[in-house]
C-alpha cells in the first residue's frame, strides 16, 4: 500500500519527479564519465603499449609508468643492446602537442623489427621530412586521409598514411625530426626492449639495474600495463574523489529541495496520515521510499546519459579523450547517488515526522 502511495506521489508531480531524477542522473553521469575517461585513456595507452611487442620498457629516473615527463640520453640504447638476452631495443621520443595529445618520434627500422611493420589502411610510410602518419582512430575522428594536412607545433604536416591503431602512438613522425623539432637532439622518452626469452624479463631487469640503470624506471610489460589503472594515479584518485563529493552535494541539494517542497505541499496530507494513526516512522518511510525511487530512476538515467556523454566527447572533441563504459562502477555510482539523495531527504523527512497534526490539518 505504502509503495502504491509512493508511486502515485511521484506520478502526481511528473515534472518535479523527472527533473529530480535527471539531476541525480547528472550526478551519476559525472562520476561515470570521469571514471570512464580515466579508464578509457589508460586502456587505450595499454593497448598501444602492448602493440610495441616489447618485453620491457625503460623510462627516465623519476618518471611514472604512464606520464610523459622526462627524457634521457639516447646513448643508453647501445648500452642496453649489449646486455645479455637483449635482442632488440628501440627508442622513442614523446612530445605533448596539447593537454592530452602527443606526437611520437619513432626509429622506424628498429621499431618495425620489434613490432612488425605498420599495417596501412590508407596511404604509405613516411618518405619526406614534412610527412606524418596517424592511426585510423585519429584519422577517423579528424577526418584525415592521405594528402590531408595537420598542424602540429605551428607547422603544416602532410598525412601520408593511416595505420591500424595499436602501435605505440596515434601520431608518428621519424625520431630524428621530432628530436630536432623539440630541441631534444640525442634524447629519448622510452626505450622498448625485446628479449630472447620473455621468461627472463625479471632477471634482465635486475641485471640492468645492477649494470648502472638503478635510477631508471624499468618495467616489464605486464607490470607496466597493470600500472595503467586510475588507482595508480594519485591525482586522478583525488580528482575522482572530488567529483564524487560534488556529486553527493548535488544529489543532496536536489533531493533536499524536491523533498522539502513535497513536504510543504503535502502538509495537509501528512496531517491526515497522522490523524489516521501513522507513526513518524511511517511518514518518514514514505519520503525515504520516494527518495530511493528517485535515486534508482536517476541512476538509470545517469547510466544512459553516460552513453550520451561518450557520444558528445567523440563528436565535439574527436581523437582526444577515450571514454570507456564502466559497468563495474554502475552500482558504486548508484550507491553514491542513493547516499546523497537519502541525506537530502533526511531533514524534510524529519520535518514531516515532527509536523503538528492539528496545524497540518488546517494548512491550506
Amino acid at each position, binding site marked *: *500500500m*505504502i509503495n*502504491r*502511495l509512493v508511486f*502515485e*506521489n511521484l*506520478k*502526481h508531480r511528473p515534472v518535479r519527479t523527472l527533473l529530480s531524477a535527471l539531476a541525480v542522473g547528472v550526478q551519476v553521469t559525472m562520476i561515470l564519465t570521469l571514471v570512464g575517461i580515466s579508464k578509457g585513456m589508460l586502456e587505450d595507452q595499454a593497448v598501444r603499449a602492448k602493440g610495441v611487442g616489447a618485453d620491457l620498457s625503460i623510462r627516465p629516473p623519476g618518471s611514472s609508468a604512464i606520464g610523459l615527463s622526462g627524457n634521457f640520453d639516447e646513448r643508453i640504447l647501445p648500452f642496453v643492446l649489449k646486455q645479455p638476452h637483449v635482442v632488440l631495443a628501440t627508442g622513442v621520443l614523446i612530445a605533448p602537442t596539447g593537454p592530452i595529445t602527443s606526437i611520437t618520434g619513432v626509429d622506424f627500422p628498429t621499431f618495425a623489427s620489434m613490432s612488425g611493420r605498420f599495417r596501412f589502411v590508407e596511404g604509405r610510410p613516411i618518405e619526406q621530412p614534412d610527412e606524418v602518419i596517424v592511426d585510423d582512430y585519429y584519422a577517423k575522428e579528424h577526418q584525415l586521409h592521405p594528402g590531408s594536412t595537420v598542424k602540429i607545433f605551428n607547422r603544416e604536416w602532410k598525412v601520408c598514411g593511416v595505420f591500424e591503431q595499436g602501435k605505440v602512438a596515434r601520431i608518428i613522425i621519424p625520431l630524428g625530426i621530432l628530436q630536432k623539432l623539440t630541441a631534444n637532439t640525442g634524447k629519448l622518452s622510452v626505450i622498448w626492449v625485446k628479449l630472447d626469452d620473455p621468461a627472463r624479463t625479471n632477471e634482465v631487469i635486475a641485471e640492468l639495474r645492477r649494470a648502472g640503470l638503478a635510477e631508471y624506471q624499468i618495467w616489464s610489460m605486464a607490470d607496466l600495463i597493470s600500472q595503467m589503472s586510475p588507482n595508480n594515479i594519485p591525482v586522478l584518485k583525488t580528482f575522482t574523489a572530488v567529483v564524487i563529493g560534488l556529486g553527493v552535494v548535488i544529489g543532496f541539494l536536489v533531493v533536499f529541495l524536491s523533498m522539502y517542497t513535497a513536504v510543504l505541499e503535502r502538509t*495537509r*496530507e501528512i*496531517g*491526515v*496520515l*497522522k*490523524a*489516521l*494513526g*501513522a*507513526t513518524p516512522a*511511517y511518514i518518514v518511510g514514505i519520503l525515504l521510499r520516494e527518495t530511493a525511487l528517485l535515486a534508482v530512476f536517476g541512476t538509470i538515467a545517469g547510466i544512459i546519459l553516460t552513453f550520451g556523454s561518450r557520444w558528445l566527447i567523440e563528436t565535439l572533441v574527436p581523437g582526444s579523450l577515450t571514454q570507456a563504459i564502466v559497468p563495474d562502477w554502475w552500482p558504486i555510482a548508484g550507491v553514491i547517488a542513493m547516499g546523497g539523495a537519502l541525506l537530502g531527504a533526511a531533514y524534510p523527512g524529519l520535518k514531516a515526522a515532527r509536523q503538528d*497534526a*492539528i496545524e497540518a*490539518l488546517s494548512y491550506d
Partner: protein
Amino acid sequence: MTEAPIISARGLRKVYRAGEVDVHALRGLDLDISRGEFVSIIGPSGSGKSTLFHILGGLTPPTSGSLTVAGYDLLKISEAERTRLRKTTVGFVFQKYNLLPTLTARDNILIARDIAGKPVELDADFNALLDLLGIRSRLAHKPRALSGGEQQRVAIARALVNHPAILLADEPTGNLDSENSTAVLALLGDLNRRLGQTILMITHNAEAAAYAHRIISMRDGRIVPND
C-alpha cells in the same frame, strides 16, 4: 450494572499559547458519552468544540482535569499511545474530506488498514457498508473525479474501516450542499442505528445537530444548557 461511559471528562482544561497570550480553549468541561450514542456538539466559533474534537481524537493532549476515551487516560498517555489511539480507537471525518488526492477511493480506505497494520483488503461486511454508503461502484476513482458528497462518504468509510470505537466528525456537512448534507447525516444516523457506532459530531448547524440523540451546547470553553 450500568456500562461505563466510553468518553468521560471531568474538569477538562486546555490552555495553549498563541504568540505571547495564553488561550483558555476549554475551561473545566464535564462530559459523559455512552457507547452507541450519537451526540452533536454545537456552538459558535471559538466555543472550544474543535479543541475538544482534537483532544478526544488524541491529536493534542489536554492541559488538566481528567479524560478517559475507550479506556485510554488521555492526560497520562504518551505520544506513541495517542498515535495508537488514533490508529485503533477513533475514526475521523473532516469538513474538507481530507482524502489523499493521489490515491483512488479504494486506496484511501485501504491506507487506513495499512497504517493500522491490518490486512490491506476489504471483507464482506465492509463491502456491505460500502453499499450502504453508496460508493462501492466509485472506488476506482480518485477524489478529483468524485462529488463532494461521494468524497465525504469515502471519508466516512475510511474512518470506519478499522472498526473504531468512536467516530469523530468535525462539521461533516460543512462543505456539502443541502441534498448531500441530508444524505450524509442520514447515513451517520443509519450507521449509529445499524452498527451501534458511537458518533460524536461537531457542528455549528442546529439542523444537522438535530440528527443526533443528544445535543451538547458549548460556549467559551464550557458546556452550557441548550437554548
